[in-house]
């Protein structure tokens, strides 16, 4: 984070095959990509191009078939392939916040508990501290008046803002977002982007997937993915 020229995440020759009844399907083929601290990186491509698959390789939600992903976070370098499922989970919980198109909030918990959950899981914050922090985060995404509501009682845009607040709970250096505005109307989406922009200005690193080429100007840099391969790059690195 301190040195903008040494990458936060390095993806080297990563391939990913899905094994289906029809045979092995190559969803990613030899991806090389570095993610630098403080950048707002866009991953764009058509539906089915492999964007979500690529994100899953970074978050450790799914395993790549070959290659390596290295993370240089919290002063340590780790190869994701070396981590067990549990270590990956703990690492992900502490170093990155994940935002999905479908919000993925827990319906039985109110907003504040949803935001507190990652802090509870990682054990990085004391319960009292984590409640304060969750309140601050919800205030930041302008939901301070709704902390006791349940996800089903607020709008989609509000839910996505809760998801962002939750992604920030453990104060991670990296935010990974898969079509975060996919189910939102343009006004609501703009609001979400404002929050992201604000986070980037704060110095956080964001990787965001979208199929909407209209969003390109927002990114500090973007890569294009087509049929599992990186086919283009733009913006100022």
């Amino acid at each position, binding site marked *: 984070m301190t040195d903008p020229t040494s990458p936060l995440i390095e993806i080297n020759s990563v391939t990913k095959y899905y094994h289906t009844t029809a045979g092995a399907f190559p969803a990613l083929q030899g991806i090389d990509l570095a993610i630098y601290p403080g950048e707002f990186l866009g991953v764009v491509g058509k539906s089915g191009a492999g964007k979500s698959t690529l994100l899953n390789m970074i978050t450790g939600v799914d395993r790549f078939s070959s290659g390596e992903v290295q993370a240089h976070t919290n002063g340590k370098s780790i190869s994701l392939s070396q981590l067990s499922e549990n270590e990956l989970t703990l690492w992900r919980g502490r170093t990155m916040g994940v935002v999905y198109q479908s919000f993925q909030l*827990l319906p039985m*918990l109110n907003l504040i508990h949803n935001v507190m959950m990652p802090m509870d899981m990682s054990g990085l914050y004391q319960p009292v501290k984590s409640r304060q922090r969750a309140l601050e985060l919800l205030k930041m995404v302008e939901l301070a008046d709704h902390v006791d509501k349940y996800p089903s009682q607020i709008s989609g845009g509000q839910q996505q803002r809760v998801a962002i607040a*939750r992604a920030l709970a453990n104060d991670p250096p990296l935010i990974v977002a898969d079509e975060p505005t996919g189910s939102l109307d343009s006004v609501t989406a703009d609001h979400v982007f404002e929050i992201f922009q604000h986070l980037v200005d704060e110095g956080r690193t964001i990787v965001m997937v979208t199929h909407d080429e209209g969003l390109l100007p927002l990114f500090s840099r973007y890569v294009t993915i087509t049929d599992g391969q990186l086919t283009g790059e733009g913006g100022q690195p």
Partner: protein
Amino acid sequence: MRPRWRKVLSDLIDNKARTILVVFSIAVGVFAIGVIAGAYVIISQDMGVSYAANNPSNIEIRLDDFDHDLLNTIRHFKGVKDAEARRVFKLSLRSPGETRWTSVDVVAVEDFQENAINLLKPISGAAEPHKEQILLERDVLEDIHASPGQILELQLLDGTIKEIQVAGIVQDASTGAIDFLSPPLAYITMDSLKFFDEPDLFNRLFVTVASGQDDEEHIRSMLADLKDKIEKNGFNVGRTFISKTHQHPLESTINAVLGILMALGVLIVFLSSSLIANTLSALLNQHLRHIGVMKLIGGRDQIIFRMYLVLLLAFGLLALLIAIPAGGQGAYALAQYIADKIGFSLLGYRIVPLSFVIQVAVGLLVPLVSGFIPVISGSRVTVQKALDGVRTQSSGGEDQETLEGGYRFEHFQVKATRALADRGIRIPRQLLISLRNTFRQRGRLLLTLFTLTMGGAIFISVFNVRITLHDYVQKIGNYFLADVTLDFERPYRLEEIEQYAYQDPRVIHVEGWAYATAEILLPDGSTAENITLLAPPAESDLVSPMLIEGRWLRPTDKKKLAISEGVYDYYPDLRAGDSIPLKIDGKEELWEVVGVFKFIGLEGVIGYAPYEYISREKNLANRSYSYRIVIQDHDRAAQDAMAKDLDAYFRAQGFHVLEATPGLSTLDSAAESLDILITFLLIMALLTATVGSMGLAGTMSMNVLERTREIGIMRAIGATDLEILRMVIVEGLLIGLLSFVLSMILAIPFTYLLSAIVSNAIFATPITVIFTPLGYLIWLGLVVVLSSLASILPAHNAARLTIREVLAYE
């Protein structure tokens, strides 16, 4: 509260129906175990203590009339701690205004103050009768409505009717305990005997031994010594009984029955675990996305595993909250019920630590064990799969395996439908959908079928066992075929009795029987057991024995007998044609066993020898004390009426009648005690059926819940509520009927097993199994009703949701 525990709490509270289902299915098993274990402990502790508290006699000897001389001899006999003598005679009692007489055994006690053996416990009124008053044992109250102070009518042997006042009600836990079939008791003082026209003499001895009160060997040898002594003093000894001080004579029977109930309780726990496993794996299926989300934000396996473990424990704790108090109450109620029936008292309500511990262990272990595998696999699932699971679920709720199963079924279904259509049979599309749905979740279907089938099989078996037991009692009745037994105080000639009896047009046959008592000796010459030898005419039709081997009596038999299978206890290798040593009238003789027959093992050994031989040996040729009378109608009412009329008639003619007993009366009380057992079995059967139907209800609601989206889509494309309702109900019925077919089959081995265990416990002999359609029919009805009910509620819920709600459902 930390968010993770908040989530666990919400999981518990939000889906109340599911929580209740799981909690109740745990609670049913824990309750059953608690009741039985608790009752077992309470009874085994209290039965012995309560029995011992009344200082029961170790030896009871019935003999000729005797006085204080013999009593003093016995009191000073070596090894005797205490001896008391009483006079016991039969009497008929009724409340004034009643028509029916109740036969009671009246016990004349010399001194209620000094009474030290077979103590009486006062229940109400006076604890001692004054002269010409009577104390009633509380069993009498089952037949006669009486309270202290009330006047009852009694009938003496010569037919005179007198009035007597009830002094009080007492409980006698000892005197009747040994003899299952003995009539209820009443007590008077010796100086009242004259009032009853009885001689001022004793006819029973009650003895406690000085040492080895719980040593059966010792008590038995004391009995043999006492009998020798009594016979040397010139008295004839009749039936004798022995009992340990701290063990109720029926304890082993009760324990055997409780053992059977325990086995069923364990089975219920087992069934409820499979039900819980089913519910929990469905729950984890529904929670897959939540698990995925938690892993996404850093929740490790251990955390998630622990969260669900706590959820399981919470289910268990909630179940315990219901089951422990209910089980404790139930245990005491069951123990109380048994205590009342058997005639002992409990030491008071208490929590049985053992059963508490067992309940806690079962209540916590059952959810843990049955939920362990689903929870482990749920917490190990990868984020990708967990989030994917949701993806496939929302598009149909099937995993790869069931999809293939579905396709295979679809394939089969298409073929089958075509084959049927070729023959002009068309299966309604609705039924096809239901059929397909039934087989969609095969693991769940199997568990549901298992639970319901077991419940049904036990239910059906209990009915079969009931018929089997009653049939056996009926067969035992073949030893008592006479409609009325007429006993006299002195022997009368057969022709004389026939002449009078045939005056009544209802009488069609009269037979004189003889009796003898004997002792079976062991090869070393010691006494094994007393037996009663009944001596009907060899050609008598009034005994139709269940012969195990050998033959029945012949008129020419001399020193030959047929003996009940109880003899195998002493001569296990006995064959027809072998001889055994008997002691009869003080003489040791070798008798040939011509046949062995089945009887109630608990009633000891009985033997039959021809009247022709026994009467001559007793110098009673052509005469008899006891007559068997056959009349036209054989029902209980006709027998009762006849017994009463014969009694009155013979008394009026100046005969010294002892009593006239209707033939079925013995059987009725035997059948009654069987019914207690059957009631317990039925309760257990209902509990298993409850678990089974809860399983079905759970399965149906899970099936419907998981298909909520699909049902919404069906409705969106025009299916009516009624069609959806029908689809779900047909699915429930299909499962119910499938389980019924399986239960029918499984009930066969269950019936054999249960009959064998029960008959060994209460008859101490194996019995022939009989099947009845009754259990099958009732269960069929129950299954149809239960499975419709189990599906109506979830179906109704599903049909009630608006399309918008359903499509928003995740």
